[in-house]
């Protein structure tokens, strides 16, 4: 129910009246009972998927705070509005969520992706409620928590006062403040339900309980949402065989998860395989910065720590190095500082493991940029990660300079990096080192996946050296599937992107609207 009033200047203003906070968001504990058409089935799911993928893409661009919320609000209004909690809005929300549950429960990667972005959506909606509405929602959803007594607050005053609160997620944040302890309500929550706060040391702990100020309650509720959704996904996975018996939806559902998945560089590569002897040259010429750093440090120290080995090893796998060659490569380098025996015992196994020849035989896919940027950063003695993300300005400048990048280009890349547009910076790097590439080859996936960068570079030099007459430019549906992030996540093809054509999504045939 909404009432319209006209203000003095004749513009309609809406009074926010009577929206049901408990209907604006949901823990999705019960599946909806409804009948829908097949068309609705697909459409609802795709609309929600669009939202989730936009969340990912906005985050990758480093958006945060109000900017993030505004952009997301726009996308949500376009795809699946949820402003008043009307029956229609709720219906679409519930149905689309559960359809996507089916589509995204199959593998661990899919589940993780879905969990992550659904949680972000939930957090967004939760933060839009005011504290009364939130309290009401909590009550209705059975999320009651103990309030800390006045005596205890006084007893712990000094410690509670000393707990820093970052205004946004650590890493993005600028402001740090503390709460006015005596004027704040605290909740006593088992630490297992406040893991996010615990991990970032954003909360005071005593005897296994986290003392959470009311303004941090959102994190807790989101954590609860996440864990209950996680359980739900596993249940969905168990129910899959039954779901797939319906011949109509089975193909829709199996394709949904693949819908925006581009090339993930898993599996055996057809075409040119990589020559180990060329690696040094290729590191300078064709590898993205992240892999170049790893290669150089490997050559320098004759070893890499765990994440470095994984990130670089999987990259090489995706670039076409077979398992035997890989083992030979690492062995040759590592045995400069250790015996073959030690190498075989401590490192060979893990190489075979990520080729899928050991243990649970999972064929690991090379990391995409999303994973590298958002993953664990390098610590002391480590060289993995994304230099545009993990290096500070001075070191990044030095690195690019050593790589032979000109001053003006360097400045631009650093500017992009400071604005947290890490992938754009990497793409810029590709452009400056591969002049004229757009007209020779397809730059699909560059900036989204290190292997795409590498593949594009190889193709560029192949073209340049006069082999083949393939004209490139706009992605050719028949030539290749768009090389984008591995697994379920993928760039939503933000129309505002300056590199529209290379960020195209879709499988090439009948690509959905960006």
């Amino acid at each position, binding site marked *: 129910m909404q009432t319209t009033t006209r203000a003095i200047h004749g513009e309609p203003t809406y009074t926010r009246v009577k929206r049901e906070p408990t209907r604006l968001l949901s823990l999705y504990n019960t599946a909806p009972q409804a009948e829908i058409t097949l068309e609705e089935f697909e459409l609802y799911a795709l609309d929600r998927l669009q939202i989730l993928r936009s969340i990912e893409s906005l985050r990758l661009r480093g958006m945060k705070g109000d900017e993030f919320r505004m952009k997301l609000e726009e996308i949500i209004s376009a795809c699946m509005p949820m402003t008043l909690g009307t029956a229609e809005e709720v219906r679409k929300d519930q149905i689309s969520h559960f359809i996507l549950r089916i589509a995204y429960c199959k593998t661990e990667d899919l589940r993780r992706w879905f969990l992550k972005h659904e949680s972000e959506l939930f957090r967004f909606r939760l933060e839009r409620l005011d504290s009364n509405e939130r309290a009401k929602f909590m009550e209705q959803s059975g999320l009651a928590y103990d309030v800390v007594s006045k005596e205890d607050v006084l007893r712990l005053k000094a410690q509670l006062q*000393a707990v820093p609160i970052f205004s946004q997620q650590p890493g993005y944040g600028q402001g740090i*403040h*503390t709460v006015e302890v005596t004027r704040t309500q605290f909740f006593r929550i088992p630490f297992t339900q406040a893991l996010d706060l615990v991990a970032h040391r954003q909360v005071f702990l005593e005897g*296994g309980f986290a003392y959470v100020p009311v303004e941090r309650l959102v994190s807790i509720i989101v954590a609860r949402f996440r864990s209950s959704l996680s359980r739900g996904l596993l249940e969905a996975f168990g129910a899959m065989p039954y779901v797939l018996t319906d011949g109509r939806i089975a193909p829709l559902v199996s394709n949904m998860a693949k819908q925006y998945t581009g090339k993930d560089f898993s599996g055996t590569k057809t075409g040119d395989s990589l020559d180990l002897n060329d690696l040094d040259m290729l590191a300078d010429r064709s590898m993205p910065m992240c892999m170049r750093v790893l290669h150089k440090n490997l050559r320098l120290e004759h070893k890499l720590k765990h994440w470095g080995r994984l990130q670089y090893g999987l990259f090489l796998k995706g670039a076409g190095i077979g398992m035997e060659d890989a083992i030979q490569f690492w062995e040759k380098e590592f045995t400069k500082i250790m015996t073959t025996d030690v190498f075989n*015992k401590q490192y060979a196994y893990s190489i075979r493991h990520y080729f899928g020849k050991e243990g649970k035989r999972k064929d690991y896919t090379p990391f995409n940029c999303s994973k590298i940027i958002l993953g664990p950063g*390098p610590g002391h*003695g480590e060289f993995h990660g994304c230099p545009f993300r*993990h290096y*500070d300005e001075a070191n990044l400048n030095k690195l690019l300079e050593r790589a032979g990048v000109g001053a003006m280009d360097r400045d631009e890349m650093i500017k992009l990096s400071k604005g947290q547009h890490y992938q754009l910076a990497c793409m810029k790097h590709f452009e400056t080192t591969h002049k004229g590439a757009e007209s020779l080859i397809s730059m699909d996936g560059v900036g989204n996946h290190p292997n795409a960068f590498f593949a594009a570079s190889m193709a560029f030099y192949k073209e340049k050296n006069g082999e083949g007459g393939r004209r490139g430019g706009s992605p050719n549906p028949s030539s290749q599937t768009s090389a984008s992030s591995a697994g379920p996540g993928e760039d939503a093809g933000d129309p505002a992107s300056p590199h529209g054509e290379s960020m195209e999504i879709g499988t090439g045939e009948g690509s959905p609207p960006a």
Partner: protein
Amino acid sequence: MSFLLFRASFLSRSSFSNRPIHLNAKNTLCTSTCGRLSAAGNRENMEIAPSNTNKVSVAAAAINDQEFSPELLRFFYNRLFPYQPMFKWLSYGNDPDNDAAHIVRDYFACREFSFTINDDIYIRYQSFRDASEMESAIQKKQPHKIDIGAVFTLPPKDHHTVKAEAFKPVERELIFDIDMTDYDDIRSCCTGAKICPKCWVFMTMAVKVVDTALREDFGFRYILWVYSGRRGVHCWVCDPNARALSNDGRSAVVEYLSLPRGNEKSKGKNGGLSWPLHPSFTRAFDILEPMFESGVLGEAGQGVLDSENSWDTLLDTLPDEDLANRLRREMRRLTNAQDRWLEIKSQVRAASSAHASGNARRQSRGGRAGNGLFALDLWKYEVVFQYCYPRLDVNVSKGTNHLLKSPFAVHPKTGRVCVPIDPEDVDNFDPFRVPTLKALAAQIDAYDAQNAQNASAKALPDYKKTELKSAVELLERCVVDPVALATKRRLKLEREKEAAMIGDF
């Protein structure tokens, strides 16, 4: 020749009454009992026991000087490894031979162990029904290393019989691994696998900080600290809620316990401390600073304030160059490291209050280290933490699947037994006096010699005749007994509740 002497001599000392009776271990005990069987045949020789004392000692010395050998290992597994206490710990009271209703009968059987045989061959998915099955397997396989894994949905040795999804970890202790090699960048006394009393103090500091945090912040109570055998310590948190922690939970705990860090390249970005300091940091500082002063600063430690070069490096990190230069002059004037530290602290304190204008500080209630307003205040914390703050191997703690060396295993390089450490007495723990296999062998002989006439004393389980007795008692005190007590209380409560309900009828 000496080998034969060794075996015959100590075997003749053992009698059947020394060992608990193994019903199902006939063939597997063969190799170690066959000697005893001959001893039984040589009953008369037992009477000569006292005069054999010389033989054993001589024989013990006559063994090659190695701290670790297959013979020593066999002896250890045969007479010293505390199977029963370990079983009692890892089963948390779930004895399969106990008929009570609350027992999870196959709990212990679902625990994974892994063995390293002969330094080379690594076998996973070992599992045993109870202490005696475990003993037989260990005695048979003579593993150089024993690791403990998680409790799974079914006995690990049967994991091939089901689909991969059906074989999952159910619970697992929360574990931590602190290794001296992670401190290499601040150790000047040793590197790599080598340790000395000067750098061992880093382990002591780590144990104190982590133990306090685990107990006070997380409320954990059943915590077992263990010497890793060479250059570090392990921690096993055995509370039921710790065992049930998800990977995310473990990840969160270990991140809470770790310093926010980047590497040299990302320092400018967002590594490092910020103001205000979380209460766990101020507490850690209070624990660490005294040890920093006595154990790291001076000659008895890493010599951080001992020579011009080293204090220069330290003062370089001060965010105030003028202050640093003033202090450099002072350093030369003072004669010992502790005085220098006090001087530095007092001048930093003075500078920090004079420095930032009162208003700016009062208005902002927090800031990062790089932010000038609090840089000076944070400096001393950063210094102390850089040296002393625990450096945990996060990968060990994050997964429920990670296999970790078993307490009371023997380290193949040092021959030392991985004994528990008492966190209340960690200052007095000396890794260089941890019993080795040879020493333990000698202790048994000595005890038996002293109690040659006292049959019941000699009938004690062998580990109780040695230093291992107190080690095992520590295990029992930290984990076994509290768990048993808690179970008892819980059952009592349940019985009372039940009785009350039935009574109401």
